[in-house]
C-alpha cells in the first residue's frame, strides 16, 4: 500500500515538473513575441477608429510615442527605448527597412488618411487647428554610427521606399502605401519638402535623433496650402459632407530639431 502511494507521488512530481517547464517555455515564447509593442499600436489604431466613427464626440485618442533604438548590437545613447530593432549594421537596406516599417506603422495607426480624428469641438467647429502625432522617435546605436559614418541620403531612402515592399509576398511598395504614388517623379512634383531633400541629397547622419510625424489640420490656410501640393483632403464628417475639410499630413521622417511645415498647434500622442 505504501509503495503504491510512493509511485503515485513520483508520477505526480514528474507531471508537475513537466508542467512548470512547459509553462516557462510558453512564457519565454510569449515575451519573445513582444506582444506589448503590438498592442500599443493596436490600441492607438482602435482609438483612432473610435474617435473617427464617433464623429469626434465619442472616444479619445490613446496613442503613445514609440521610442525606437535601431541597433546593430549595441546600445542607443540618450534614449530609453520602448522598442529595439536589431539590424545588420553594415547593411543600409536593413536600416532603411526598419525606418520604413515605422513609417508604415504610423500611417496604419492613424487611419491611412481615411479617418478624421480631430474632434468637432477641438479642431472642427469651434477652433481650426493643426494637430500632429509623433509616432516614433528614432536613434541609432554606436555600431551603426561607426559602420555608416556618412549615414544615408534622402535620395537613397526615397528610392528604397519606391522599390521595396513591406513583405516579400506584397505588391504594394512603401511609397505607394505611404503617399499613394508609384513614381518618385510624381512624389517630388507634389511634395516640396521631399523634393528639396531628394534633389539636394540631404544626409541622414546616424548620430542624430529622428522623428516620424503625421497629422491632420482643419486650419483653412493649411488645408489650402496642402491642397495646392496635392495632399489628401477629407471631411471630418463624411466624404460627401464637405462642411469641414481636414487636410492629412502624410508621415515623414526627419531630424527632431528640424522645423518642417506645417507647424503643429498641438500634439496628440503621449510621451
Amino acid at each position, binding site marked *: 500500500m505504501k509503495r503504491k502511494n510512493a509511485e503515485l507521488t513520483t508520477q505526480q512530481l514528474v507531471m508537475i515538473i513537466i508542467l512548470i517547464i512547459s509553462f516557462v517555455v510558453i512564457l519565454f515564447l510569449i515575451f519573445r513575441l513582444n506582444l506589448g509593442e503590438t498592442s500599443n499600436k493596436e490600441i492607438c489604431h482602435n482609438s483612432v477608429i473610435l474617435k473617427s466613427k464617433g464623429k469626434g464626440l465619442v472616444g*479619445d485618442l490613446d496613442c*503613445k*510615442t514609440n521610442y525606437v533604438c535601431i541597433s546593430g548590437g549595441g546600445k542607443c*545613447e*540618450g*534614449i*530609453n527605448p520602448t522598442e529595439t530593432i536589431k539590424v545588420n549594421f553594415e547593411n543600409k537596406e536593413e536600416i532603411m527597412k526598419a525606418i520604413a516599417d515605422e513609417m508604415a506603422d504610423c500611417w496604419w495607426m492613424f487611419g491611412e488618411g481615411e479617418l478624421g480624428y480631430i474632434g468637432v*469641438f477641438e479642431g472642427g467647429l469651434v477652433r481650426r487647428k493643426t494637430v500632429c502625432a*509623433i509616432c516614433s*522617435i528614432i536613434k541609432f546605436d554606436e555600431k551603426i554610427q561607426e559602420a555608416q559614418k556618412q549615414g544615408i541620403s534622402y535620395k537613397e531612402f526615397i528610392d528604397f521606399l519606391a522599390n521595396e515592399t513591406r513583405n516579400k509576398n506584397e505588391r504594394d511598395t512603401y511609397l505607394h502605401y505611404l503617399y499613394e504614388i508609384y513614381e518618385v517623379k510624381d512624389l517630388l512634383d507634389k511634395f516640396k519638402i521631399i523634393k528639396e531633400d531628394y534633389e539636394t541629397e540631404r544626409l541622414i547622419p546616424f548620430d542624430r*535623433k529622428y522623428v516620424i510625424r503625421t497629422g491632420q489640420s482643419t486650419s483653412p490656410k493649411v488645408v489650402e496650402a496642402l491642397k495646392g501640393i496635392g495632399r489628401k483632403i477629407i471631411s471630418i464628417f463624411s466624404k460627401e459632407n464637405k462642411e469641414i475639410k481636414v487636410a492629412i499630413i502624410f508621415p515623414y521622417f526627419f531630424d*527632431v*530639431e528640424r522645423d518642417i511645415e506645417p507647424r*503643429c*498647434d*498641438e*500634439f*496628440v*500622442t*503621449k*510621451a
Partner: protein
Amino acid sequence: MQEGTSLNKRGFLLGEETLKIVLAVISITFLIYLLVSLYFAHVRDKELELAKASLNHLIEEINANAEEVEIYNPKGWYISSFPMKIIGFSEENKIEGTNLIIPKTCSNIGWESCICIYSWKGVRNPSLAVDNLGACKENEFEIRGSVSISNTQRIENTIKIQNPPLTLTINYENKIIQENES
C-alpha cells in the same frame, strides 16, 4: 360674478404657463452647465494624462542619461522644479526679497524637491496651481528659466511649454535642466 370667475381662471392659466417656462429655462440652463462642466472636466483629464506621460518621459530620460529631451505636450502648461524661488523686486528692478515655495502635492509625501508639469490658470501662486491641476515626481534636478507674474514679481525655476516641441538640455554635473536655445 361669472365674468370675475372667468378672469381668475385666465390668470391662473397664465401663472401656470409662466411657471412651466421658468422651470424649463432653469432645467435647460442646468443641463447646459452640466454638459459644459463635463466637457471641460474631460479636457482637463486628457491634458493631465498627457502631462503625466511627459513627466514620466522626462524622468526616464534623465535616468537614461539623455542630454536632450523633447516635450511635446500639453501646450500652454508649465514645467517647474520645486522648491521654487519667487522674486519680488521694485520698479527700479532692485530685488526686494525672495520666497521659496513647494506644493503640498510634494511636501505632503515628504519630498524635499520635485519636478512638476501643471496648468496655471486662475490662481496667483504656482504651488496652488500644481495642487489644483498638475503632475509631480520626486527629482533633484533644477529647472533654469523664469516667468514674470507682474511688474514686481517673477518666478524662477519655470519654463512654459509654449511652442512645442520644447527641447530641454540636461546638465548632469550641475543637475540643471534648461531650454535649448539653438
